[in-house]
């Protein structure tokens, strides 16, 4: 990547891997690995949104959880820009994968997460106040009357009323519960929020409200988002840049508009053509991908996409393609990226 874009990078993930062992038998012998995240590299600039899109099981959720070390990474580095460890207030890039528990806990104030399931992500036994205040309590900031003020401010900011504070999650609708989750994520003033399918479980009209809220909050608090979703239209709407994942690997990453108009990877092209368009007069020239998504515990040789790719050549089944920056800020992993003329939307 070019030097001038280098400074305002907030999160820089390099070669991240997360393998889950498959254990069988009485002695729990490891017979193989599910390569959920397999050598993934991407970066997020301050205040921007990186969309992470892919079909189910492609490892996008695992990638997010590994970044915040809910799962321990198998390999790779996760650099995060922070001034928490320097004496003179200078910022430096710290490798999250190497931090010990105490150091990591400090940085957890800067990275928050929003979850998919509006029911499952809130503890049913805790009141809304307890839920939203929990991050502050964990970091020893949840004492005194200021906590209540902060919680009220957060709830009002996400469009809930202060009196909702004493209620319990089951008394809210899906969209409201997602707002509670968003308020909790903002409690410690993070700089990066990992949004794991935050609108997938919501109805269309509520989805729009939530997306708008996320955009407003980004502007107000100068947040950077990693926005994970399987819905391409949603991802494109909210993201500045988009990374496309397929079976544990990122196959393409580019500016959102660029990616949709001028894709370089056949999977991106096919995925976009498969999205049903809300326009009955649209003449579908759909590229049907044959077969099912590859099994991450037993991926095909070479390029993982080659069995479903209509441009595949011999080399695609033999060698894994290299991850390269073909155009400025446009990365792709495909042997034939230079020669193919792919169709955008």
């Amino acid at each position, binding site marked *: 990547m070019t030097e001038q874009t280098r400074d305002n990078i907030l999160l820089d993930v390099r070669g991240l891997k997360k393998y889950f062992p498959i254990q069988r038998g009485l002695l729990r012998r490891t017979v193989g690995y599910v390569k959920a995240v397999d050598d993934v590299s991407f970066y997020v600039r301050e205040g921007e949104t990186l969309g992470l899109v892919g079909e189910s099981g492609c490892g996008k959720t695992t990638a997010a*959880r590994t970044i915040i070390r809910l799962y321990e990474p198998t390999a790779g580095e996760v650099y995060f820009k922070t001034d928490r460890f320097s004496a003179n207030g200078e910022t430096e890039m710290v490798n999250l994968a190497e931090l010990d528990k105490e150091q990591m806990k400090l940085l*957890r104030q800067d990275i928050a*997460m929003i979850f998919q399931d509006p029911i499952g992500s809130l503890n049913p036994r805790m009141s809304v106040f307890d839920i939203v205040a929990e991050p502050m309590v*964990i970091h020893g900031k949840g004492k005194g009357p200021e906590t209540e003020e902060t919680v009220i401010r957060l709830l009002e900011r996400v469009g809930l009323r202060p009196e909702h504070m004493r*209620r319990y999650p089951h*008394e809210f609708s899906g969209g409201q519960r997602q707002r509670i989750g968003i308020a909790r994520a903002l409690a410690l003033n993070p700089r990066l929020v990992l949004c794991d399918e935050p609108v997938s479980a919501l109805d269309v009209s509520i989805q729009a409200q939530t997306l708008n809220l996320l955009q407003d909050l980004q502007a107000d608090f100068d947040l950077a988002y990693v926005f994970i979703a399987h819905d391409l239209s949603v991802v494109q709407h909210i993201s500045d840049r988009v990374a496309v994942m397929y079976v544990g690997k990122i196959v393409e990453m580019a500016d959102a508009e660029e990616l949709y108009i001028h894709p370089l990877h056949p999977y991106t092209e096919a995925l976009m053509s498969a999205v049903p368009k809300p326009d009955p007069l649209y003449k579908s020239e759909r590229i049907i991908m044959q077969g099912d998504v590859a099994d991450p515990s037993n991926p095909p040789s070479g390029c993982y996409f080659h069995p479903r790719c209509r441009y595949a050549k011999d080399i695609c089944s033999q060698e894994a393609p290299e991850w390269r920056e073909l155009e400025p800020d446009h990365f792709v992993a495909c042997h034939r990226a230079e020669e193919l003329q792919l169709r955008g939307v």
Partner: protein
Amino acid sequence: MAEQKVPETNKKRQISQSYWSLVWWKFKKNKLAIVGGILIILFYSICGLFAEFFAPYTLDYQSDYLEARPQPVVFKDEEGNFSLRPAVYGLEEKIDQTLRKRFYEVNRTKIYPIYFFVKAEPYKLLGFIPTDIHLFGTDPADPEAHVFLFGTDRLGRDLFSRIIYGGRLSLLIGLLGQILTFTLGMVMGAISGYYGGVTDIIVQRLTEFVGAFPDIPLFMALAAAIPVTWSPILVYFMLTLILVFIRWGGLARQVRGLILSLREREYVLAARSFGASDARLMFRHLLPGTLSHCIVIATLMIPGMILSETALSWLGLGLRPPLTSWGVLLQEVSSVRSIRFAPWLLTTVPFVLLAVLSFNMLGDGLRDAMDPYGGR
């Protein structure tokens, strides 16, 4: 579609209720469970706390009436006229010449009125308040008078009083044993499920090891290992511990399974993503999630505890006289002879049944109530 709508709106109607108030709200609607709960409270207060007050005689009282039949209760005064004050007929000793056996017949000419809050044998209420008031009894001025509602045993002891005293040990062994089982099971299960790995394997093998023993031979071995010289109280505690030792495994497994599934819940992941400590995750998120399930399991396990004590004592492996428990009482009627000549000694059985049934009714009600979100 509509199915989803129903519970959602039910929830909206109740203004701001915590989980436990929802549970209580739902529990109240189950009449059977309420009855069970009230019965259990009665059992524990009558037998457990105030046995001396409710029993007309003390534990070591022995009358001269051996294996006397129950005295019927009538509402007559000493002249034979109707009276609101209950009374019992006296008993008269007879000898059955063919069997060469002494027995008692109801003597309808003698009537002993029953008085309430009478002064009789002194005792200490709750172990420290000295008093001599009993709920009911015969005229203390009349040494002849006696009231044996359920008859007497071979040594002339009042069975009614003994059932009340016996309930104390039997019910307490259930409660105490279950509290210990509950604690041990929760702790072991939580550790096993939360830390996983080697800890998990060790705990799992341990529960399997304990669970693989056949119950009765294990009891016999363990009971035989208790020295005869030990005081009955010590034996009582040993027996409780033996029961706990055998039963904690099942609960531990359930807790482990619950913890394993809760660990992957998004709210637990959320707390972890903010850096919550192990203790916070355990006590704030994981254990509260298992608690309701475990309380139900534990309630439903108490009858098993009570029945185990009864069965063991009946086999002569558990509590021994002079301790009195329902098992000990039943052991005294373990011969055909006593069933033939003193069938009233079996009065203990309905009490055991009622206690067991009450716990089951309460447990069932709790099970339904503990899941207030899923019910419709």
